[in-house]
């Protein structure tokens, strides 16, 4: 009787606690690599702390944040971040939808094409950026050469605000469009063909079917990719950093014309060694990212069938 009781209790324990055990590895790893760094960053952001002299750090509470709010270069960097977010995220999703639509047809060697669109994503971001920086070179860049053929003259891509943002956006869009296209493609294949058949019988054109059936049914995926793209594009670092190699890389151009918030964080932390200030940038950037992702969610949530 006692033995029975023990087994039963054990069974109850098992069903009660085992699920926690199963999800524990994720939370442990998240705790070590996600939560701890986040809390630590917040803690550092309240200090006046040199990167190389952590022992000499002093608590200054919100002084870093006060300085940040009055720092024109921080606002410049935030403006560049939002501009690049818009220039990367919107085209990325539109192109991805379009490419997924193309790939969702019966074409020869379509597996090859489907594999092909993911290629830019698995190449190293450093290599991609270095190549693109050459393509956008002022004197010997391919892009300027083509523009010159059409008589458009040469553009110093790094020098201007708009031109540098466009060049960086091209790199990001090129790299991530295929990834999003594959997500869209997978969901498109799950849309029952009867919907399209019925629409065809009702006389709906291909364009109408795309915007009235495909896009509304992809709504959850569009929300997902918008959030993923937003979190990625709000912290662009490698592209603007490597677009302007050399000793001045961290300033993002001669007049900080393409310095993103993440790059400003990098400059403050790793060239000025102001670890506290750079952590406060990280915190503000994280909060802004959540807000922008929320906005993206609200916009994409409005997609619906009429």
């Amino acid at each position, binding site marked *: 009787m006692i033995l029975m009781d023990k087994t039963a209790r054990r069974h109850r324990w*098992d069903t009660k*606690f085992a699920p926690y055990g199963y999800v524990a590895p994720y939370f442990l790893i998240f705790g*070590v690599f996600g939560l701890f760094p986040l809390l630590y960053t917040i803690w550092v952001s309240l200090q006046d702390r040199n990167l190389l002299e952590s022992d000499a750090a002093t608590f200054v509470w919100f002084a870093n944040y006060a300085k940040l709010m009055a720092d024109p270069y921080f606002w410049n960097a935030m403006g560049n971040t939002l501009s690049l977010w818009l220039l990367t995220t919107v085209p990325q999703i539109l192109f991805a939808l379009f490419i997924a639509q193309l790939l969702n047809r019966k074409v020869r060697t379509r597996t090859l094409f489907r594999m092909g669109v993911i290629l830019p994503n698995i190449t190293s971001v450093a290599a991609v950026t270095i190549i693109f920086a050459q393509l956008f070179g002022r004197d010997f860049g391919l892009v300027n050469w083509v523009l010159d053929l059409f008589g458009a003259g040469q553009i110093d891509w790094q020098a201007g605000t708009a031109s540098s943002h466009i060049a960086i956006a091209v790199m990001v869009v090129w790299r991530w469009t295929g990834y999003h296209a594959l997500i869209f493609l997978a969901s498109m294949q799950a849309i029952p063909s009867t919907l399209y058949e019925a629409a065809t019988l009702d006389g709906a054109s291909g364009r109408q079917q795309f915007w009235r059936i495909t896009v509304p049914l992809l709504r959850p995926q569009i929300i997902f990719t918008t959030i993923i793209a937003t979190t990625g594009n709000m912290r662009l670092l490698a592209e603007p950093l490597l677009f302007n190699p050399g000793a001045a890389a961290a300033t993002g151009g001669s*007049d900080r014309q393409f310095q993103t918030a993440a790059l400003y964080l990098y400059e403050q932390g790793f060239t000025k060694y102001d670890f506290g200030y750079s952590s406060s940038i990280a915190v503000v950037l994280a909060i802004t990212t959540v807000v922008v992702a929320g906005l993206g969610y609200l916009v994409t949530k409005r997609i619906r069938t009429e």
Partner: protein
Amino acid sequence: MRPKALVLGCAALATAVVLSGCGSDTASGGKTKLTIGLFGNFGYAELLKEYAAAHPDVEISDRTASYSDHHKNLAAHLATSSGAADIEAVDTGYINQFKATPDKFVDLNTKGGDQLKDRWLPWKWEGSLSKDGKQIGYGTDVGGLAICYRRDLLQAAGLPADREQVAALWPTWQDFMAAGKKFQEKAPEGVKWFDGGPTVLNAIVGQASVGYYDKSDKIVVGENKEIKAGWDLVVDGVQSGLSSKLLYSTPVWNTGFKQGQFATVTCPAWQMAKIKDQAGPEAAGKWDVTSVPGGGGNWGGSYLTVPKSGKNVDKAVELAAWLTAPEQQAKVFKSAGLLPSIPKLYEDPSIVDYKNPYFNDAPIGKLFTDAAKKLNPQYQGPKAGDIQTAIGNAMQRVEQGKQNGEDSWRQFVGDVQK
């Protein structure tokens, strides 16, 4: 029982994941492994082989990164006290930042450095000495200053190509710009007089008696008339179309050497190795070297430091001392053109009489040792490297037509006062 075991297992897994990031270099076959972190071209490849051959118990691997990556990585590694090489090279532009935290490095004075002190130029030794008298690095080279120029391009524009005659064109920087305007009238298509404003400006700054800082570490560049005059002169040169508008040490600047986009470039001694690497064998004999306008000055030069986090600091100190010893510096001068920081060598005939075949047999030994003897050391403040970057950005704003000289100067002065 089971859930508990599972949790334990997970904890073990997580710990393993964390710990695997901290694996240590295990010596293979009883050998001591030393790593040396460099940037650019130190000319050490042969020397390291030589050292390893003479010391069978030591295995050396070197890693080379770009100038800015190297120093930023070093800062990150020092901050976390892990990942730094056993020996790390540090440039003049960064040494002041690092010597502000001397406790991250081995004090070489405690490892026999004070005995070696007299090897170096006194200002080189002081350059890496912390305020409390700790020596964090052994000096490798000094920059010195000269001008490298393309003989063929000068000739094509109707200017002399002979070294002495070229030097006679530009006793001062004003003359240098005037010669540039003459050059530009008949210059081959697409060729400019100099590579970029920031490069020329760095040389002028290097010659000034006071640089960005005064000796009390106060930033005085805003009131420095000497530097402002140099700034105005370079701005005028840029606006007269003399500049290729390329920023030094960038890929486009490297391409500029290959394509022959500019006729002259400011040449600290270490620049010669870069030119040879970038312009390649097909440009051999086209380049030549002559003396710089203005007086003696310095730009760059480096130190070898030994971070405290290393596992074999004694062997590392030994290697750093060997690499910076007179015999080795003499070899590096001949192989890579880096100017020794050792005054004894400036009298050594094998150095003084050395001619560089790549640069049309220019007597670089005489040229640079003369320059080094004339050199008037300038005090470098804590963030001299950052200010150099900021003034380069400021000049680029003028070159890119984003601002005029006055506005850009004002913004620069405001930036560095922050």
